[in-house]
């Protein structure tokens, strides 16, 4: 007999990127938290196994200020360096190589930003940097917009995952175009991780219901009034959306269908004998006395 634990384990398979399996489909950013302790507790509550980090100069006026690895054990979390705030392919490649030189892994969350107000990607620079980093042996996870053609190019260049946005970075506007996200998911073979834009748990749930493989989020956790509670909510919502997708939703109908049996209803009050069908619907012509 199947135990409940076995049933649960069979509900979903791990997220697999470049041959590496993750039980959690939520990837967490580590930026913008009020303090490192809240960040650590929020990431624990999110269930994330992979976390993103940025590469920056050490502040030589405060050389003892701790880097992120002081707070997050790289043996416990898979560290995904990013190229955030890079505006050209060359700059992104330089930051990616610096991240790899830390010696943890050869993965990179590639961002090439095209425009400061929206932080939307420069897709030309993105494809160029992606191709170069793949040639250089990187496992590239590319942050992009929700454009199918760019997503296809990134896959063609050998990116290990394509990460279209739900809405602009840090906007919290949620999933603006479910159609384009489903289209990208349906046409690519590599994992699709929606990166950026989710604001609250329902956004994460609706996003996962589109059938994507995972979500990357940062600001929704860091800027919540209570990041730890929001992280737990996001974990549950990500799982809920994923399972709802796998389960397959019922069809939408523009009329009601009763959930309870229509048969077996009592006869009208005052009914005598065997006259009158049981379970008539209200409004249907009935036999028997009407008094």
């Amino acid at each position, binding site marked *: 007999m199947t135990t409940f634990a076995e049933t649960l384990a069979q509900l979903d398979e791990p997220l697999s990127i470049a041959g590496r399996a993750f039980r959690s489909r939520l990837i967490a950013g580590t930026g913008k938290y009020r303090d490192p302790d809240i960040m650590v507790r929020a990431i624990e509550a999110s269930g994330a196994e992979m976390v993103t980090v940025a590469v920056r*100069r050490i502040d030589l006026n405060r050389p003892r200020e701790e880097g992120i690895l002081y707070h997050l054990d790289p043996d416990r979390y898979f560290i995904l360096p990013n190229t955030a705030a890079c505006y050209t392919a060359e700059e992104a490649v330089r930051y990616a190589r*610096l991240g790899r030189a830390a010696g943890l892994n050869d993965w990179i969350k590639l961002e090439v930003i095209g425009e400061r107000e929206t932080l939307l990607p420069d897709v030309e620079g993105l494809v160029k940097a992606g191709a170069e980093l793949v040639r250089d042996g990187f496992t590239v996870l590319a942050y992009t917009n929700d454009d199918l053609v760019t997503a296809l190019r990134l896959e063609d260049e050998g990116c290990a995952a394509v990460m279209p946005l739900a809405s602009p970075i840090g906007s919290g506007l949620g999933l603006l175009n479910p159609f384009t996200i489903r289209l990208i998911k349906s046409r690519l073979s590599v994992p699709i991780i929606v990166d950026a834009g989710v604001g609250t748990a329902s956004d994460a749930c609706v996003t996962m219901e589109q059938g994507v493989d995972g979500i990357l989020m940062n600001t929704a956790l860091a800027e919540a009034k209570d990041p730890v509670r929001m992280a737990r909510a996001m974990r549950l919502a990500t799982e809920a959306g994923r399972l709802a997708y796998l389960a397959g939703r019922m069809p939408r109908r523009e009329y009601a269908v009763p959930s309870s049996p229509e048969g077996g209803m009592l006869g009208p009050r005052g009914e005598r004998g065997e006259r009158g069908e049981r379970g008539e619907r209200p409004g249907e012509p009935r036999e028997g006395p009407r008094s």
Partner: protein
Amino acid sequence: MSATALEITLNGERREVPEGLSIAGLLAHLGLDERVIVVEHNGEILRRPRYREVTLAAGDVVELVHFVGGG
């Protein structure tokens, strides 16, 4: 340590360091733990074993980076 100093650009700032200082020496001088740092020297990423071999020269550009919080 030699008394003469030379000027390098360190993380975008001009800085005087003692002549003959190695990268390893620079990190020790700054009180930095070399295990969590990546060093770029004149545009080239330096592997850790080379920290002791490379000696700073006047006009060198050194970047010291690490991982910080990011999305």
